[in-house]
């Protein structure tokens, strides 16, 4: 289908383009000029036209957790949030540790023809942290990277071997830095708030100690490592130094962590029970600053739909995680506005930067790039409410908040997959 998007404010963070203009699409790709007449014209007057969002962590809960969410509900949520590509972590049930499972997920996702799904394979069998998975086979089945999700890998010899093996094939490894033993039993940031609320704490050094180990192993093995969900000021500083040294590392932060801190736990709000835990305001400010100065490469939603029954529990017993696909754009815009960044700079963190880490051609408007597009009204306000979220997970600390930024159109490979007037 040939589509012409006109009159919109076209922002392409990769090239820095930010001007009123047109985006032309033919055969599912961006093109410089349409060959012939458009079959559809989208008038984007007053709206921003940007590459579709790329989310490095969205749990679709399939296979295994269909009562929390289904592929269909979460893919709906993705495109309603302007997310056209997403990487899903391997912590499904069973985990993504066999090519057959990956293949099935990809095929199920393809049939739904909404966002592009990039499975992240399990680094170890059953995510148990003991035996390596068949990474080459998994990569052939479509895995773009390998990860432990939130499962611990406490045996550092296994970690070392896993990184060596991945480096052999040039596979990137995505890991969250957390010392399993120091974090054991903890449910909140170890600090004044946890002390006051009587919640077992996870100290910030559970992250920095594990990060120190990881960086040393990257130095030894040369593996490309992407560090997931930074949570502490100390970790931001360590990444800054590691990048200055030239280590092949990148990192992301969950979009909740640049807005919230442990103060937001209030009176045990289980929607703020997240992994890693929300830390102090100083940590939050360091994460926000690190994201602005490029130390942290990108934002992700870390979308984790949780059944409401599993949230209506005392804080420590509640299941961690927050729904995020539909809030990624407005929360990113809110962050950018707070930092007073140009819109293109803000959007880079959820388009071209994650595209680079994922190694895909989307996330930009270069001719020939896949025509994944989001068209949104950056000022349109909306109230976050369970009834309006398409995700099966209604679990967000932002319930009841007024946010700005509504998606009007989402296109994947040139096909309109979401439209809302």
């Amino acid at each position, binding site marked *: 289908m040939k589509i012409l998007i006109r009159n919109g404010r076209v922002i392409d963070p990769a090239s820095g383009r930010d001007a009123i203009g047109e985006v032309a699409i033919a055969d599912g790709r961006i093109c410089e000029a349409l060959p012939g007449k458009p079959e559809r014209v989208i008038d984007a007057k007053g709206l921003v036209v940007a590459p579709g969002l790329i989310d490095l962590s969205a749990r679709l809960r399939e296979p295994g957790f269909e009562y929390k969410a289904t592929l269909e509900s979460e893919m709906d949520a993705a495109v309603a949030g302007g997310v056209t590509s997403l990487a899903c972590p391997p912590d499904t049930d069973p985990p993504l540790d066999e090519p057959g499972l990956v293949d099935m997920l990809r095929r199920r996702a393809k049939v739904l023809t909404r966002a592009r799904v990039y499975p992240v394979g399990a680094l170890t069998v059953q995510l148990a942290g003991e035996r390596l998975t068949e990474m080459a086979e998994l990569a052939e089945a479509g895995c773009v990277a390998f990860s432990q999700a939130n499962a611990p890998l406490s045996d550092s010899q296994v970690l070392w071997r896993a990184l060596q093996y991945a480096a052999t094939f040039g596979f990137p490894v995505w890991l969250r830095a957390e010392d399993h033993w120091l974090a054991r039993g903890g449910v909140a940031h170890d600090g*004044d708030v946890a002390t006051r*609320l*009587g919640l077992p704490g996870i100290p910030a050094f559970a992250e920095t100690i594990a990060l120190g180990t990881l960086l040393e192993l990257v130095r030894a093995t040369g593996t490309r490592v992407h560090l997931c969900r930074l949570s502490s000021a100390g970790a931001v500083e360590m990444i800054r130094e590691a990048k200055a040294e030239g280590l092949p590392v990148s990192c992301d932060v969950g979009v909740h962590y640049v807005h919230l801190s442990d103060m937001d736990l209030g*009176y*045990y709000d289980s929607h703020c029970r997240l992994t890693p835990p929300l830390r102090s305001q100083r940590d939050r400010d360091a994460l926000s600053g690190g994201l602005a100065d490029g130390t942290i490469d990108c934002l992700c939603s870390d979308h984790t739909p949780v059944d409401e029954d599993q949230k209506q529990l*005392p804080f*420590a017993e509640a299941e961690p995680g927050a729904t995020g696909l539909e809030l990624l754009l407005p929360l990113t815009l809110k962050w950018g506005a707070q930092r007073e960044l140009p819109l293109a700079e803000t959007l880079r963190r959820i388009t071209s930067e994650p595209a680079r880490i994922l190694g895909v051609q989307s996330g930009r408007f270069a001719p020939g790039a896949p025509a994944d597009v989001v068209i949104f009204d950056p000022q349109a306000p909306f109230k976050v409410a369970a009834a309006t979220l398409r995700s099966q997970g209604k679990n967000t600390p932002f319930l009841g908040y007024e946010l700005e930024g509504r998606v009007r159109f989402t296109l994947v490979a040139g096909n309109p997959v979401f439209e809302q007037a």
Partner: protein
Amino acid sequence: MQSNPQLNANGELRHLLSIEGLPRDVLGSILDTAASFVGVTEREVKKVPILRGKSVFNLFFEPSTRTRTTFEIAAKRLSADVINLNIAVSSQTKGESLLDTVANLSAMQADLFVVRHGSSGAPYLIAQHVKPHEHVINAGDGRHAHPTQGLLDLYTIRHYKQDFSRLSVAIVGDVLHSRVARSLIHGLTTLGTPEVRVIGPQTLLPTGVESLGVRVFHDMREGLRGVDVVVMLRLQSERMRGALLPSAQEFFKHYGLTAEKLALAKPDAIVMHPGPMNRGVEIDSSVADGPHSVILPQVTFGIAVRMAVMSMVAGN
């Protein structure tokens, strides 16, 4: 941040969930009300009709003998009907959720829930879901709070020492796991106690405990010097199984209260303990039974304090 869930729109006590956040005058009026009930508990007919016709559900998700019993006595002296539910061995083991349990009891026309739960914050969750005429009293949640214990501690201190504004109070032992310590600290600071000390090894003090407004001592002798009140905390035997403490013997040597260490406090210092005591672990028998000990009066005051709280949240 939500508004304080334990006060109603007029600033009156609707639930008692934590001492933290209670205004000074509310604390004062609880203690004054308790004083008026001490007389009742000493009469021959120990009953007043304040909660007549009301149903009090003792919801204990954790085993407890003393607290449950004193709540039961307090409710009966207020003429309420008391139903004890030991949930640790009933529906929760059948997989019923906390809120389902509460909803079922609510359907049986409950007026007041007295809740003990192993998870910090559980009474807040219940308070958010009860009907407008139902009330919740926290009888101990995880490590967070045990407000009626804190109040009876405050009552005891006021009884023996009158004025909080000149006092120095030392809380000794396992502060990390202690809801009693947290509640008492908030109460003491709210009532203007100038010096609140916590004494213990680093492994048993929570991170940033200073932020609660206390001074930290690791040396018990130094910490006890010149104090008016010594509060000993119970040390659970399971603490010795992890890496927090090597042995009960070594703990007692450094943090157990003996007559010799108590001699460093003021000559008229009082010794308190929330019970149940581990003699020879945190406190020596000669001190527990000695002239400074007010441990048994604490229990007696506990009934009056619980009557006061119940009558204030659920009375007409």
